[in-house]
């Protein structure tokens, strides 16, 4: 058979299957595909198996010996030989009707969840493949069985019914209602999304699926995504992960973000996590946790770079190269004395345009604008805007440098306030 046949999953489900003598051998319940994208370089998973119901028994057969033929729009399914699938093959398959049809999947280009109205498949000489998902109104109406009359009506008015397909390589399936699935799905395609987009998607998923997707991310990505999640989802995920795994993710995050999350958790759980985390990180977090909500201390980042005023630019560059700080940490660099009392600030720009032998005290700006750690947050936005700052140093009452508040955190706080006012 060299002809190409395309068909919809919904047209197959519930169809009768015949052997080549035309004798009824069962009804189609589901199609099984290989969920691992590394096994299908074309991006289209091959249909491996078929679930058939005969009288009251469900059986799984290899799809190789099944042929789907379309004559005048009518579909017939013919089976030449019944070869049962092994338990292992069944367990490592994804059920198209059960796990994809009517479920939510991730549209990678639109970076959002969409609901699947139908799946389009194609049979060519090398096998049958799932090529696209239908998320349009046409697919919905086809399922209900009223697409033809409506198309006719729309045609009378010169209109069309909008249809919308997404190619299989541009989607990632999420939900496994198949409890037997053995392999842990990699969600490889999701790793390409921006952490913020991924966070939005995970927030919209159900309880089970959100943990499942999150657990599949690698630690770096997981930490980035965790930062972007809303508090409720953060709490939910941290409570469903194992303590070790959760602590590993938190270790990779900035201390101020961790402190915010732990604040929302129950005290016991937070304590468990702190004990499991690495010593230096948890120490930083504990210091931040002391600050009450609505104080500068609770939103400040404790990752700052401070130098002695006698150090040269060369020394500064050396240290920056060695420590490789995050981008945010470079918003502002600080000068402190031996007791870590804040003296002045300087910027990366100052460093870049100065020659290596210049001392910091020659370029630094003394008596900088600063905040106190117990100061109220709502005063910060004004100061940021008044002095055009990206980051403001935070000191305690002895003027010891404790951290800095970064403009992102101020904006985040403002947005949160606006939201809760709604």
């Amino acid at each position: 058979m060299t002809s190409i046949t395309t068909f919809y999953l919904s047209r197959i489900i519930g169809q009768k299957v015949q052997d080549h003598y035309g004798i009824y051998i069962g009804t189609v319940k589901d199609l099984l595909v290989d969920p691992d994208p590394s096994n299908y370089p074309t991006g289209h998973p091959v249909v491996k198996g078929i679930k058939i119901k005969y009288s009251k028994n469900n059986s799984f057969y290899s799809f190789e010996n099944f042929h789907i033929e379309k004559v005048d729009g009518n579909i017939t399914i013919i089976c030449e030989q019944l070869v049962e699938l092994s338990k292992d093959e069944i367990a490592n398959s994804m059920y198209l009707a059960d796990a994809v049809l009517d479920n939510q999947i991730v549209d990678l280009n639109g970076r959002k969840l969409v609901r699947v109205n139908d799946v389009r498949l194609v049979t060519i000489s090398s096998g049958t493949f799932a090529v696209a998902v239908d998320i349009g109104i046409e697919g919905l109406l086809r399922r209900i069985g009223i697409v033809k009359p409506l198309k006719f009506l729309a045609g009378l008015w010169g209109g069309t019914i909008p249809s919308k397909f997404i190619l299989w390589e541009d989607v990632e399936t999420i939900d496994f209602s198949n409890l037997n699935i053995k392999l842990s799905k990699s969600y490889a395609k999701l790793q390409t999304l921006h952490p913020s987009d991924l966070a939005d998607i995970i927030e919209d998923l159900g309880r089970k699926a959100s943990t499942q997707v999150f657990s599949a991310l690698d630690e770096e990505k997981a930490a980035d995504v965790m930062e972007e999640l809303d508090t409720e989802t953060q709490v939910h995920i941290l409570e469903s992960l194992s303590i070790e795994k959760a602590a590993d993710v938190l270790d990779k995050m900035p201390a101020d973000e961790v402190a915010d999350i732990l604040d929302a958790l129950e005290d016991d759980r937070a304590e468990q996590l702190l004990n499991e985390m690495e010593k230096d990180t948890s120490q930083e977090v504990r210091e931040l946790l002391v600050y009450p909500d609505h104080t500068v201390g609770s939103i400040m980042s404790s990752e700052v770079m401070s130098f002695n005023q006698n150090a040269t630019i060369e020394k500064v560059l050396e240290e920056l190269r060695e420590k490789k700080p995050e981008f945010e940490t470079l918003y502002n660099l600080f000068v402190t004395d031996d007791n870590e009392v804040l003296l002045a600030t300087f910027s990366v720009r100052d460093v870049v345009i100065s020659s290596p032998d210049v001392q910091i005290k020659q370029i630094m700006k003394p008596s900088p604008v600063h905040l106190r750690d117990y100061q109220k947050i709502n005063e910060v936005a004004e100061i940021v805007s008044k002095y055009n700052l990206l980051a403001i140093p935070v000191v305690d009452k002895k003027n010891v440098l404790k951290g800095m508040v970064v403009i992102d955190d101020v904006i985040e706080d403002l947005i949160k306030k606006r939201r809760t006012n709604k």
Partner: protein
Amino acid sequence: MFRNKKSFFKKLGIFLAILGPGIITGSVDNDAGGITTYSVAAAVYGYNLIWTLIPSFIVLVVIQEMNARMGIVTGKGLADLIRENAGVKITFFIFIGLLIADVGNTTTEFAGVAGSMEVFGVSKYISVPIVGFMIWFLVVKGTYKIAERIFLLFSVSLLMYVVSAIMGKPHWGEIGHAIIHPQMEFNAQSLAMIIGLVGTTIAPWMQFYMQSSVIEKGLKMKQYNYSLIDIVVGCVATVVVAFFIMVACASTLHVNGIQINEAKDAALALKPLAGAFASQVFAFGLFIASIFSATILPLATAFYVCEAFGFEAGIDKKWNEAKEFYVLYTGILIVGAAIILVPNAPLIFISLWSQVINGMLLPVVLVCMMLLVNNKKIMGKYVNKPVNNLIGWGAVIILIALSLALLVVPFFS
């Protein structure tokens, strides 16, 4: 002692944070349609049908508890779950029904706005467009959360029905007797009334609303007990308000043989019998309840329909991102308000039929819910206990029997 006190306040704090879904749902429950049904039932049957509030209460608690549990365990809306497990066709049937019934209900809410303002001498041609636009503006401009809280505060004013009821000097002895010895006549009118009473107390769309608000609150299984208290408080409030509305109307209208068709009639009829104040209190309660429900109902309906069919939805989305949602929302609101402004619109017909559709939908939604909440794949260890199943299936069977009886009885009488 001090520690106990601290833990008491901590618990109270947790409760207040969780508070909401059940109580808001309970308040929306006594909407214009509800008030109308209670008033009419009491005007016709006096205290005789007050007993229906007790089984309604039990079923209401059981159903809302299931919704809360499903929301907490799955984190998915009821519309999502039905679509994913029951397929497109059943989903389509439920949501077309829900859409039609809710347009009808929204119309009833605007009828409540119009009627209550007429008691205060404001023409419906002024009150309905203003209120309609206000609601639309409130939601689309995204101040919905504030509005919800204000309404919640206002809904306390529904307790003013207690005042209305007491001013009508009810016979408490007779009321007690009527509750202890429930009476029921087997004729079409009485059966329809009972279905109406149960149907307005347990409206199908509320199940969707309840589950979504539990998810929005981000409740967890640890907070389940507080959530349960919230539900019980909400249901008690619903039934108490309904009780006093029925008492107010039964002890005045029924005793004097006054028949009414609308809640507004009840407010007007109360004036000579219980005084102008009682009448105004009744009308004010109706006004608040109508606006509250007219805000939530179209919004909720648009949301669930979009959820089920996979369109973007939510008031935090922009018009272009969620076109279907906003078009649907605006459409329901406009149609609902416009019908009221048509002279001689068949309001009673509309309110009756939206109740009947609700009554037909309710068993379907309940059967879906019962199957979902007993599905181990979805609920894990939190599937229904035998008691829940007994009451749940019992309610389904009784509701179906009542609906069937309503269809059959007219042929015998």
